[in-house]
């Protein structure tokens, strides 16, 4: 059986599109090039939690119904509601989001995507400051300094380093993979020597390497790519880095502003910032200025710790300032595979990336007022449609309570916590596995998602389900106007 080549992986924001799959008898049996998350998605998507039939809550129990009945009920709920919430969108295709926006406009609801609880603050900062960014290939070809701040790509975006940054082979910068291997080997040897010494000298074991080396090592000033990780804990990515800066929790803002001052050649009149001696920071600032092309990637460690959007303000300003001295770019590490796509489609149709309110017949945007968590906390919504997301398990408790109190429609391939609380549950085919679509990588590069196997019988895509609901809503509305 031949392989299917160049499949795009619908898991994280890296959207690796070089996956090879072997299909046998309509099933995926082998995944090549993928990371662990990719493998588990392609091999385990049909697990025990997969939904197969539309469900409707009758007398407190979810019972199986036909798709038409479920769609009708969903349309009724949405038409009757004064202020429905349509939430999710980051794990489905742009095509589905397009229909979702039309539906939200039709029913005069508020529509929001998961950016609201992850990189929402980043968007707000970009709207204040702008963002000097690039596509990931630019980093691969040119970056000689890569900084990961408040994120752990080794675990959360496992192929990010390999495909796009330090371990990738670019035109002007080469892969540091070999350097990393020899470093790892040296570490193993070191540990062995330590052990041997321990055995020889019984108790007084001389420590060769302190566990956290805080001073910038001389290797940081070598030719070629350098990688710095800034985080509150020593992650796997930090192990990989040339230099690890352990920032005190909730002190990122101070650290970023200190670096900003140093980059602008100001003097800092303190000994330490965020637990790091200023002398070390001076060296880091120097390195940032001296590089040919720097790239800073940041994650939720920055957006969701104290300061939130102010942290991002500082990071964006730092990178913007650096551009007067050298070339520097910055990029958020987006989590869901199509959260960038959801933002993108929202923006082209409404002008705003998330938290869009259609209750006045035109798009309104005011995060904090029109964002999902806030409308739920204020108890304003009277029905919800959740697509490809699980807010019950990760929204604040009060918000989730209000969500489940009112009629709740869920479109999802799996039985998640939200689906269990749903009144109408419509199972969908998995985009990128069973149906095709489009997704946007974290750097806004659009990639096609492939259909590699047939969906289970009776299952259709999110897009088709939403279209059915939309046409049903329109039918009910025209019926009503004719009556009156």
């Amino acid at each position: 059986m031949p392989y299917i080549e160049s499949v795009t992986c619908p898991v994280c924001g890296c959207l690796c599109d070089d996956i090879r799959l072997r299909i046998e008898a309509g099933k995926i049996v082998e995944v090549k090039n993928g990371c662990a998350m990719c493998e588990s998605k392609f091999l385990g998507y049909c697990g025990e939690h997969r939904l197969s039939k539309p469900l409707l809550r009758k007398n407190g129990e979810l019972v199986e119904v036909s798709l038409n009945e479920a769609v009708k009920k969903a349309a009724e709920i949405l038409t009757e509601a004064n202020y429905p919430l349509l939430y999710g969108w980051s794990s489905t295709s742009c095509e589905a989001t397009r229909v979702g926006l039309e539906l939200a406009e039709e029913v005069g609801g508020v529509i929001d995507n998961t950016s609201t609880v992850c990189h929402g603050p980043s968007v707000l900062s970009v709207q204040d400051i702008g963002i000097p960014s690039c596509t990931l290939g630019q980093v691969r070809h040119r970056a000689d300094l890569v900084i990961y701040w408040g994120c752990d790509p080794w675990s959360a975006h496992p192929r990010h380093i390999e495909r796009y940054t330090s371990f990738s082979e670019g035109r002007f910068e080469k892969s540091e993979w070999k350097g990393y291997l020899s470093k790892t080997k040296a570490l193993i040897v070191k540990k062995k020597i330590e052990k041997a010494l321990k055995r020889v000298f019984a108790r007084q074991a001389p420590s060769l390497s302190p566990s956290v080396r805080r001073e910038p090592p001389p290797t940081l000033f070598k030719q070629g790519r350098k990688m710095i990780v800034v985080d509150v804990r020593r992650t796997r990515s930090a192990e990989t880095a040339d230099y690890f800066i352990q920032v005190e929790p909730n002190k990122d803002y101070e650290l970023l502003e200190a670096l900003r001052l140093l980059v602008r050649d100001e003097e800092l009149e303190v000994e330490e910032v965020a637990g790091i001696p200023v002398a070390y920071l001076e060296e880091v600032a120097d390195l940032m200025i001296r590089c040919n092309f720097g790239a800073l990637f940041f994650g939720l460690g920055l957006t969701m710790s104290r300061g939130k959007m102010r942290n991002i303000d500082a990071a964006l300003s730092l990178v913007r300032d650096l551009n007067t001295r050298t070339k520097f770019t910055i990029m958020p590490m987006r989590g869901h595979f199509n959260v960038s796509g959801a933002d993108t489609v929202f923006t082209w149709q409404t002008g705003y990336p998330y938290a869009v309110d259609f209750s006045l017949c035109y798009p309104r945007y005011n995060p904090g007022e029109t964002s999902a968590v806030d409308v739920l906390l204020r108890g304003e919504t009277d029905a919800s449609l959740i697509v490809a997301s699980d807010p019950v398990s990760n929204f604040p408790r009060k918000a989730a309570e209000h969500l489940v109190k009112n009629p709740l429609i869920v479109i999802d391939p799996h039985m998640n916590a939200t689906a269990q609380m749903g009144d109408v549950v419509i199972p969908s085919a998995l985009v990128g596995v069973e149906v095709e679509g489009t997704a946007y990588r974290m750097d806004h590069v659009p990639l096609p998602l492939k259909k590699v196997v047939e969906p289970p019988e009776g299952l259709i895509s999110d897009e088709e389900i939403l279209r059915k609901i939309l046409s049903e809503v329109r039918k009910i509305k025209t019926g009503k106007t004719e009556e009156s």
Partner: protein
Amino acid sequence: MKNVSDHRAKKIDVSGMIVMPGGVDIHSHIAGSEVNTGRLLRPEDHFKDSECKTSVTRSGVGYSIPSTFTTGYRYARMGYTTVMNPSMPPLEAKHTHEELNDIPMIDKATYPLLGDWWFVLEYLSQGNIEELARHVAWMISSTKGYAIKIVNPGGLEAWGFGHNVTSLDDQIPHFCITPREIILGLCRVNKLLNLPHSVHLHTNNLGKPGNYATALETMKCVEKLANGEKPVLHITHCQFSAFTGDDWRTLGSGAEEIAKYLNGHSHITIDMGQVIFTDTTTMTADGPFQFGLYGLTGNKWVNHDVETETSAGIVPFHYRKKSFAHATQWSIGLELALLVKDPWKIYMTTDHPNGGPFTAYPKIVAWLTSKKARKATLKKINPKARSRSLLPSIDRELGFYELAIMTRAGQAKALGLKHKGHLGVGADADIAVYNVNPHKTDPSKEYKKIRKAFKHAAYTIKSGRVVVKNGEVLTPVEGATIWLDVKVSDPFKVTADMKRRFREYWTVEYDNYPVTDHYLEISQPIPVKADV
């Protein structure tokens, strides 16, 4: 007209009105990644301008970067039916096409940015024009593009490491080639491929005082490729490339020199890039220029470099009447339009949204057709700019026929769109009707009436259907996406080597790169037979 049955055809009484072909816009940023990032960047731009959903139209927002549906409606309300989106990073072409699908009412096409593509730089430095032509053909067809777009040739590659080029003969770092060779090479490729439009160029040194010399040098450098009446190069938003002076204080107009050159040569066409006094959003693929603009204004700044291909930048900008530089720019645009004698050589644009939003076109119409309208604005602008402006010395006022050429016929001709910009046999039934009686109205005196009429078309007819009446959208229709299906006799083979090279240059796989038919809701390919 043939095969129209009298009793079935709908009759519209347009006596006492101006009937023109539907408007054609040769250069307007309406879709794609930079436009959309501009939308995202500026919620404050939308707050003051929103459109409600109606029973037939979708809701949306303006102002300088309207959302997709609103863009389509606003163009149609002014009687425009065809719009060219001028800058598409090939890697992000799918995004541009997805957005174009959501722009109703108008036919559209888009130009891929090819000037700093590594393949172009490499083949040109090897002198391998034919092989390059094959690759460009592949690129245009697989991104569903319409013309070769070059932006600040060489400058964008240099911007990859934060540098720029400053003349046609600067060496581009790492590639042993100059901007002049890129322009010449791609003009040759354009000719080899028989593309309907000429090469579409945003010049080097754009937006810098003294750059009219670069613009003139660029025009001269392709002189030897001139071939009869068919232009070889289109210099876009020429106003931004027509500055004299050494710095912003000594800024002046190079319109006279450029017009003089254009009046004596026929291998170049240009569009205005007129400045409107308003708050707008500048966005170009010219990354270094946008960074300069950020330095000048201190406004928020977005940069987006695209691997192997191009870059982009966005900075909000407010053109003020009382600013010497802005007022001078305003004057330069109009001087160009009035001093170039042949309206087939210069077209009306604002380089939307760079000079101002396209919704300001009626203002430009008034300025072009009425000296009185120009005077009224001149009175209000910066006195130093006023005293240096050439406008008071120009008496020319365009007639409606000249206006029709500058706003549709000329643009369609330059684009090689045979079915647009005229009302003859073979044209699409795209028609605009404006409520002005050309026999009774003197545009020179009644410019306010003209402005009003061109703001809201009495009728816009798209593909034979009345879609707008008195400035209101009656029926939303989908427009087609026009693209070139370039046929070369010996297309390059997609070998394993090619795929490997692809994988090295980009971070996506070869198979996932092309824009498939799935991304074009209404696809209108134009077959082109190339000479290679």
